């Protein structure tokens, strides 16, 4: 898939396949092209070039069938503040041609996603977290085959985030729903997805299971925060035995290794010998952010 807005290439040569029943995560910083890709897959935006199939239907030529098969919760909860939660869900059911009794049954099933009694309140009185959960409930009204969630927990408090995570797991486990999730939260991709695609500047930089991707970097990362010459620090760390890869980002030097505990002392010694002043030296297990750093030379900066 490719999408160009004027001179800006939002998505470029994006090629991926998501299996039925999978939770696939699209990870990348703001502006990486995640939302544009989702909008094309949801028939909301057309492609400049390329093709895509969702639930077995071509998004360009069979968009009506695609729309019947998908549920979507976009980045901003798309709700009408003047409707109540119940009215929102009932209307959503009508849009998908559900019978009256099916709508009533689904509203009762999905009502627990909201706080007790909230379903009959106007949406304008809901908190941000409640709006996101109602948006998710609306996306689920017609039991879609494929669920698209565009940054479903951005801006949510930790409790709401945990509730949404639990819901996503339940949907996938109990109903076998295929879920395509975009996120800028590394821990979200790590916790929920079976496979991750890392998107950077509109291109797929890497793809695989989170653990598999992390293994490509190493099991641990040693991070040294230094004042002064970071290049000298990187060169010194790079000489240490057991270090597989060194990246510099700001005043931070990150070194991937298979065994952080055994290399941290030699790293400290190497830095001292190189005359580099170290303000902090730490070891942490490899995260997807480290994978992103290795692939792109930048970190994912989360914007709330």
């Amino acid at each position, binding site marked *: 898939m490719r999408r160009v807005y004027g001179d800006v290439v939002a998505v470029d040569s994006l090629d991926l396949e998501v299996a039925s029943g999978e939770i696939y995560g699209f990870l990348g910083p703001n502006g990486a092209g995640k939302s544009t890709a989702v*909008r094309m897959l949801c028939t909301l935006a057309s492609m400049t070039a390329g093709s895509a199939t969702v639930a077995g239907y071509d998004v360009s030529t069979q968009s009506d069938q695609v729309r019947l098969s998908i549920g979507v919760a976009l980045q901003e909860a798309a709700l*009408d503040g003047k409707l109540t939660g119940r009215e929102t869900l009932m209307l959503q059911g009508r849009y998908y041609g559900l019978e009256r009794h099916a709508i009533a049954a689904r509203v009762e099933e999905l009502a627990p996603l909201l706080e007790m009694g909230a379903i009959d309140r106007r949406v304008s009185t809901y908190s941000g977290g409640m709006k996101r959960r109602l948006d998710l409930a609306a996306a689920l009204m*017609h039991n879609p085959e494929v669920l698209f969630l565009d940054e479903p927990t951005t801006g949510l408090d930790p409790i709401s985030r945990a509730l949404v995570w*639990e819901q996503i797991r339940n949907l996938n486990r*109990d109903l076998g729903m295929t879920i395509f999730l975009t996120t800028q939260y590394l821990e979200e991709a790590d916790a929920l997805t079976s496979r991750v695609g890392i998107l950077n500047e509109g291109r797929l930089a890497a793809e695989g299971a989170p653990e598999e991707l992390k293994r490509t970097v190493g099991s641990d990362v040693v991070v040294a925060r230094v004042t002064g010459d970071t290049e000298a620090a990187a060169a010194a760390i790079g000489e240490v035995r057991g270090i597989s890869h060194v990246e510099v980002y700001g005043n931070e030097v990150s070194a991937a290794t298979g065994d952080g505990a055994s290399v941290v002392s030699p790293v400290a010694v190497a830095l001292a010998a190189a005359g580099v002043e170290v303000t902090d030296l730490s070891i942490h297990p490899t995260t997807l952010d480290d994978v992103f750093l290795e692939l792109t030379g930048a970190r994912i900066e989360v914007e709330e």
Partner: protein
Amino acid sequence: MSSAVGSRPTPAEVVRARPLGFFGDMASVSSRALRLLPRDLEAIIPALLVPLFFLVVTIGAIQNLADQAVSGLDYKAFQLPVAIMTAVTGMSRANSLVIDISGGYFDRLLMTPINRYALLLGLMVADFTLFMVMAVPVIALGFAIGVGFGATGVLGLLVFVLFGALWGLAYTGFPYAIALRTGNPAAVNSSFLLFFPFMFLTTAWVERDVMTDWLAAITWFNPMTYALEGMRSLFAGWHGWALGRALLAICAVGLVAQTLAFRSLRGRVRRG
């Protein structure tokens, strides 16, 4: 909380998404718009009070003058169509549409199987209903001040209201076109300005005979003139020619305005 969801789902054969068909889609969209009308009174009430106020004030200010200038003119009846037209013109769901666009609800609708044209036509069904309802207090005030439909009776009254609502419906194309093209509430509000040439360059206040020549000449080219004349003719009897011209004028405005609206809809859907 979430364990209830998905753990005992309604069977898939019951919850089956299916296309509703064009009229079903239109009914779904209009049902939401109609449901929201009573929650939007802050927009509707001023739009209703203004024509009532102008009806009373205009009659108070000009009636004696008009009686002297044109013998046998019932100026109250002359003004009633103007009040109806003022009430229905520009009073559409276009503002709600802008809110839907900026708030993302329009995107939600675009991702459902609803027919694209039904998205706009459904709103217009609600508009048409609103126009018919808005005519009621204006007509009631007309009756209260002595306007009657003696020559054409109840059917004449219904045709009178219908023409007013049809004019309103035809005109809605302009604010919808602006809403869809710009997504800007201020721009939609300014669409009412388009109404001024329609309203002031016509026979809204006095008959053509007593106008200055230049203004009288312009009124011939204003479709509102024929709409007003058609509606006024209903106070005197059934005049097919006047009614036909009124209908043609309304259709002409509708054709231009609705073409713009649906082209704007297509453009927005294509832009994504």
